[in-house]
């Protein structure tokens, strides 16, 4: 791609980090923390969970770095660890009791009065609300495709499924999101008319 120079610079950092250069690892973290944190935020839903997950993911990356194969693209390798961790968290979560407002949309809507507006940046992020309502299996392909801007082939490699499956999942996810968004806009129109 464009960045042969960046690639080799990154390779040097990785080699250094492998042998215990913590400053090199810190620089790798700085490069990828945005991508990893964002992925976790979009997949898991809240900033708190996203931060815990992102911390854990980087510890895993550090632990597995010694076995990283320099032939693989580092960003794909990193996002694969991150995605698999988040999928695992979602799976675990299904085993536990979930707070009411995570299941019932209106339980949260009730809280946001006039002063509730400024509560969190999360509530202002419409896409985040829609993502939360999307079936979990669609989240990873969609987030990787549109927030992390990976190709369908790379996503297929990360999730270990055929590329055709990824395309179908993204198609269905977009369709569903489109419908939700239309619904949301109709409701908003109705409100503004009152």
């Amino acid at each position, binding site marked *: 791609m464009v960045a042969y120079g960046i690639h080799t610079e990154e390779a040097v950092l990785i080699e250094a*980090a*492998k*042998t*215990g250069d*913590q400053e090199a*690892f*810190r620089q790798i*973290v*700085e490069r990828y*923390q*945005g991508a990893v*944190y*964002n992925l976790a*935020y979009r997949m898991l839903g809240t*900033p708190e969970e*996203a*931060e815990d997950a*992102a*911390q854990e993911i*980087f*510890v895993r990356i*550090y*632990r*597995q*770095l*010694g*076995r990283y194969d320099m032939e693989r693209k580092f960003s794909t390798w990193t996002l694969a660890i991150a995605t698999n961790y988040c999928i*695992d968290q979602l*799976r*675990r979560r*299904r*085993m536990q009791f979930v707070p009411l407002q995570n299941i019932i949309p209106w339980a949260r809507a009730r809280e946001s009065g006039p002063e509730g507006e400024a509560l969190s*940046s999360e509530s202002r*992020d*419409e*896409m985040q609300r829609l993502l939360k309502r999307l079936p979990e299996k669609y989240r990873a392909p969609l987030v990787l495709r*549109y*927030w992390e801007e990976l190709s369908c082939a790379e996503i297929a490699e990360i999730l270990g499924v055929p590329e055709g499956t990824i*395309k*179908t999942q*993204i*198609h269905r996810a*977009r*369709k569903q*999101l*489109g*419908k939700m*968004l*239309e619904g949301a*806009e109709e409701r908003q129109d109705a409100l503004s008319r009152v």
Partner: protein
Amino acid sequence: MRCRECESMLWVYLDDELPEGERRAVSSHLAGCPRCAQALDQLRAFPLQAARLHVVPPPPDFTARLMQRITPLPTPQELALQRDRPGGWQGPLGMAVAFSAAAAAIFLGLLSTAALALAGGQRLPLEFGNSASGIANAIGAGVAVALWQHLSWAVIITLVGMVATLTILWFRVVTPRH
């Protein structure tokens, strides 16, 4: 082109990633099919432009807090060597738990087979004893795999399956005698 086929290509069409021939086929189908045209509008209604997909930054102290956890760890190379050696921690512990669960399941299976034989007041035919312990073995292996992988629904389903199998065995062999 059929509607089904058209619909499956719509998002690739929107992203302008279709080969020329297919792109033209989809366009001409859309021109004559209100249903697919509406589906396309629905897809368009979901905007994936960068403006709406704003990236949320991690908290400012993220790296500092992470490095506090990284500092005490051995180097990644040392960690890789440790993992290659048989040993480590999580793996063997998980295995031990899984295998004792499996052993317990097999034992339970054999015990119940014996109990059934006693309750029935006679020796069971050989094939029955074999198939019962075979089932118990399979169940045990299933529990082992499930536990080793994750503690999840798989474990619960396996355990329920185990109980169900033993219940069926009990009613089929013991009840007819009373």
